[in-house]
């Protein structure tokens, strides 16, 4: 009898432990990650008012549903009418896309080089790629301000050598934004690429070369297919956060370097129009759902393959 009691207690303890392990992080994410999006979505349908908090109540019983619905699309209609938002969204997509391509072009050879070097050397090289990621993102973006500004390092050196007669405007341009994004997101591209290229069987390469395969053909037929999951993961890891980037366009970009992250930030902190900022965020999220799902799928697939 006593024994069955302890068995019972033990079973209860096991179940409790299992519950804690799953439920605690799950609940946290639902409360602080999922519910907030629902609130953003809800508030994007309300109207701004001068009050604290500055938006109309979420549930107003005095209005009929139809009235509420007609009034509530205002923010989205406004987004459609004003060019500023369209331009911001499109520019963000363009900037994120071009930066991703640049990261890929620079990151691929780097990842390939690391994957091909001696195993003892690999970890050191990899560590050196990750290291900048650990130092402050904000300060690394800031470092470029001193390099690019009109009285900055590049202009000073060029003037001194005599390549140019007067300083070139580099800071506060689109060029600086691209540079900043490629610089800060490059490690995100290299790491997944490396993880895939590392598994590449070099014997396959040699075999293909022995059989007379041209280097480009070997790359196209063997290297690229093997590394494709890494290309996808790396590209999405650059593209998605770059799309909503705020710090880089705010510090390095000019007044015309509109990106949606910065527009949202200004809408919220400068214009204090919370419902409109919520609408901007909702549409941004809608744009990013597809790449995010792609990313999840890709991760799940490569996790399956490795295990």
């Amino acid at each position, binding site marked *: 009898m006593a024994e069955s009691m302890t068995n019972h207690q033990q079973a209860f303890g096991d179940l409790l432990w299992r519950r804690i392990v*799953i439920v605690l992080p799950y609940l946290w994410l639902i409360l602080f990650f999922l519910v907030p999006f629902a609130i953003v979505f809800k508030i994007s349908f309300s109207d701004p008012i001068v009050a604290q908090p500055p938006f109309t109540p979420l549930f107003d019983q005095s209005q009929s549903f139809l009235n509420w619905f007609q009034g509530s699309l205002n923010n989205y209609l406004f987004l459609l009418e004003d060019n500023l938002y369209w331009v911001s969204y499109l520019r963000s997509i363009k900037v994120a896309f071009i930066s991703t391509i640049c990261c890929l072009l620079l990151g691929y050879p780097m990842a390939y080089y690391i994957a091909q070097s001696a195993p003892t050397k690999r970890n050191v090289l990899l560590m050196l790629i990750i290291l900048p990621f650990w130092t402050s993102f904000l*300060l690394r973006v800031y470092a470029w301000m001193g390099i690019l500004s009109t009285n900055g390092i590049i202009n000073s050196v060029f003037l001194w050598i005599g390549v140019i007669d007067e300083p070139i405007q580099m800071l506060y341009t689109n060029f600086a934004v691209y540079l900043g994004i490629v*610089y800060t997101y490059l490690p995100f591209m290299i790491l997944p690429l490396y993880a895939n290229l590392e598994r590449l069987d070099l014997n396959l390469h040699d075999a293909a070369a022995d059989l007379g395969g041209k280097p480009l053909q070997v790359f196209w037929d063997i290297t690229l297919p093997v590394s494709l999951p890494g290309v996808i993961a790396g590209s999405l890891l650059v593209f998605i956060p770059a799309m*909503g980037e705020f710090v880089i366009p705010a510090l390095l970009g000019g007044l015309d370097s509109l990106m949606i992250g910065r527009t949202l930030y200004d809408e919220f902190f400068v214009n204090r129009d919370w419902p409109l900022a919520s609408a901007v965020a909702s549409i941004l999220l809608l744009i990013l759902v597809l790449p995010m799902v792609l990313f999840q799928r890709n991760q799940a697939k490569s996790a399956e393959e490795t295990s």
Partner: protein
Amino acid sequence: MKKRSTAMLTIFSFGFAFLYVPIFLLIVYSFNDSRLISVWGGFSTRWYTALFEDEQIIDAALLSLQVAAISATFATILGTLAGLALTRMANFRGRLFFTGILAAPLVMPEVITGLSLLLLFVSLQELIGWPGTRGAMTITIAHITFSMAYVAVIVQSRMLTLNRSLEEAAMDLGGRPFRVFVDITLPIISPAMLSGWLLAFTLSLDDLVIASFASGAGSNTLPMVIFSKVKLGVTPDINALATLIILVVSIGIAIAGWIMFRQNKSLSQQNT
């Protein structure tokens, strides 16, 4: 083949320089006596002195360190549990969904995470009167939420490569799951948890956007003060601050790397 590897090496060196030269220049210029970047006014530590007299920066640094330490600790606990749930708990209901919302903060643009958390705090305030004022507490909650995903990824990958025979043996001998976790699994994954904690700490210390949304008036974290100072251009005392941060981070990573190196070495010795 030879020619190709030279080309590779060139690109690699270029990319490598691209990553490191800006940081290096920042350090050099923190010792420049001149306020202008274009002029080298001689070696000086006056920006460091100025830094330690700036109360706004010191207060912000203390707040940031406090938030980072607390949020990294909670993120490590929750992230480890999440990693454990995904690798050691057999299929549970909503597992796929759980994987989804766990990974989403990794790629979610900060402006969206920040805005949504702020609106949650404001709505909770309306509904239940909590969290009262926004400040250290709300920033900490926001940071736990986005950094626990990083810890989960690190712990999860360690758990996947882990040899399960030890755990299975302990279970076979009648060890209860919780005891097996504490006695067997925890010591093995502790290096992963340490690197998870360090990553969460660094991410929290560095975050500008989410903290700006989650904080109320009056509580400024270090990145918020830095941002407001550098928005209009280069300021030498921030160069000095950057150098100090880089120094602290490098020392932290060196220590963590050394601990993990020793741990791995003793593990591989045990295995042979």
